[in-house]
């Protein structure tokens, strides 16, 4: 079983279903549009902000504000790529064609990740440039220190969120169960855990909290985060690896 054959097959699968197109276009549109909206609001409200916030105003990070919602579309993409196989029963046909389950799973994840990376980068660069265009005098430039890193990091962040979702969906199989856990977790619970004092120390090590550090250029005034931008992304990568290993072990040992 040549892995290239399976990769080609997975590419055919991913490009031939509508959910790929709508989840990924939603990710781009929502992230960019919401980022522009919040950038525009920030510009008009800037003079009324408290001094602390004005001092640590991060035009790069503000233009990525749409990602809190846009990442949900990436989660749906990641979940559907995997769980579509289960919800349709296609998994049995697929595994009969490719009985090497590791090859099957990692070819699928490689193809979906490649696509997510392209879309993530497009989203991130579009969100940055369009966000800056409405920030007016508050804008920053791509050449400023740390900005390019943050923009590339934004693309990586979206890719990693999709990968993490693929691993979880492989473990859980059901699309509803996977989405029902991942969406509220990343949209609400993780934010709460990372901002409430009692849980802050642990909450900031959650995948999205750690990973999103790479998109910040100007640190907060009282920033005491114990990791830097790349350290945060590294923590997120560890989460992704754990999720994919879990998915692989589940798939390997389970009856299809």
């Amino acid at each position, binding site marked *: 079983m040549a892995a290239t054959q399976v990769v080609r*097959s997975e590419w055919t*699968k991913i490009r031939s279903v509508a959910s790929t197109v709508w989840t990924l276009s939603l990710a781009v549109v929502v992230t960019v549009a919401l980022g522009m909206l919040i950038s525009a609001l920030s510009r008009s409200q800037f003079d009324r902000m408290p001094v602390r916030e004005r001092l640590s105003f991060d035009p790069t990070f503000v233009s990525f504000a749409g990602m809190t919602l846009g990442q949900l579309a990436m989660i749906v993409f990641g979940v559907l790529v995997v769980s*579509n196989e289960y919800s*349709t029963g*296609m*998994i049995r046909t697929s595994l009969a*064609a490719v*009985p090497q389950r590791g090859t099957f799973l990692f070819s699928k994840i490689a193809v979906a990740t490649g696509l997510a990376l392209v879309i993530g980068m497009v989203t991130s660069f579009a969100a940055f440039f369009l966000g800056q265009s409405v920030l007016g005098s508050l804008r920053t430039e791509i050449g400023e220190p740390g900005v390019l890193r943050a923009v590339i990091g934004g693309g990586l962040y979206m890719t990693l969120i999709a990968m993490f979702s693929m691993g979880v969906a492989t473990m859980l199989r059901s699309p509803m169960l996977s989405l029902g856990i991942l969406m509220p977790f990343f949209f609400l619970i993780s934010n709460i855990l990372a901002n409430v004092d009692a849980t802050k120390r642990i909450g900031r090590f959650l995948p999205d909290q750690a990973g999103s550090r790479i998109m910040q250029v100007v640190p907060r005034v009282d920033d005491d985060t114990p990791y830097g931008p790349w350290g945060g992304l590294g923590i997120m990568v560890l989460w992704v690896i754990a999720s994919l290993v879990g998915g692989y072990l589940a798939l390997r040992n389970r009856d299809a």
Partner: protein
Amino acid sequence: MIELEGLSKRYGEKVAVSSLTFTVRPGIVTGFLGPNGAGKSTTMRMMLGLDRPTAGDVRIDGRHYADLKDPLKYIGALLDAKAVHGGRSAYNHLLCLAQSNGIPNSRVHEVLDTVGLSAVAKKKAKGFSLGMGQRLGIAGALLGDPRILMFDEPVNGLDPEGIHWIRNLMKSLAAQGRTVFVSSHLMSEMALTAEHLVVIGQGRLLADTSMAEFIRQNSRAYVRIRTPQRERLLDVLHGAGITVVETGSGALEVDAGKPERIGELAAQHQIVLHELSPQQASLEEAFMQLTAESVEYHAHSDTALPHQWGDGWERG
């Protein structure tokens, strides 16, 4: 050729398949028969490496399924016609399967043509009728031009024309020397297509025999009699040493009796007969009887037969 050896599958306490040992030979259609829930689909999933056996082994042409390079070129299977992503077109569904096994794209068009789906190749599978879905599944099984084909309940949901088509397809595949293994819960369907028969009930092997042999052994011949003078006839037949079974419908049945002899006896004693007819129990009845008495038959099923076939198949 498919060889099963002591294949077993347990789900917790429940035994789905219990040490099945049989061989599916090339060149003929082998019917895999059993009532619903007998373990047919579980057995087939284990053959394809989808479910892991609790014990025992399956080999495809001497190898484990997972060790086959490009397995679709060895064995094609229709397990579940609905095992398709409904949002994908028939063409793309087959294309992704073909690509995963290094099968050329041109073959996709060929099999679509074979199953008669060329006209709807670009249509999404969710719009397909059950019959069309079944044809798409069969197209997938034929894709790699495999030597072994496996169909799980292929005629389910098909119209008469489709059923006819499937029967002929299976026969012609076997005639080309391929191994054809087809499951069904309908004896009548098997009688029309299969030359060899493997019967299971409650996960156990009940019979592994040629269809002709199965028919010979299991179809009970008897004579049915109707008469208004029931008691007198019973006396006469008893007197002649003939065993009579009284059925609920008021008729009498004589096993292995000769209608001539019974007719002559009735005439001698001037008994009026309304019916005197030789009957053959249907295969369906024989099958139901077999599966109902699964334990008793299990004891007989391990006898000499498997070795005979082992010698026989290589000729074909």
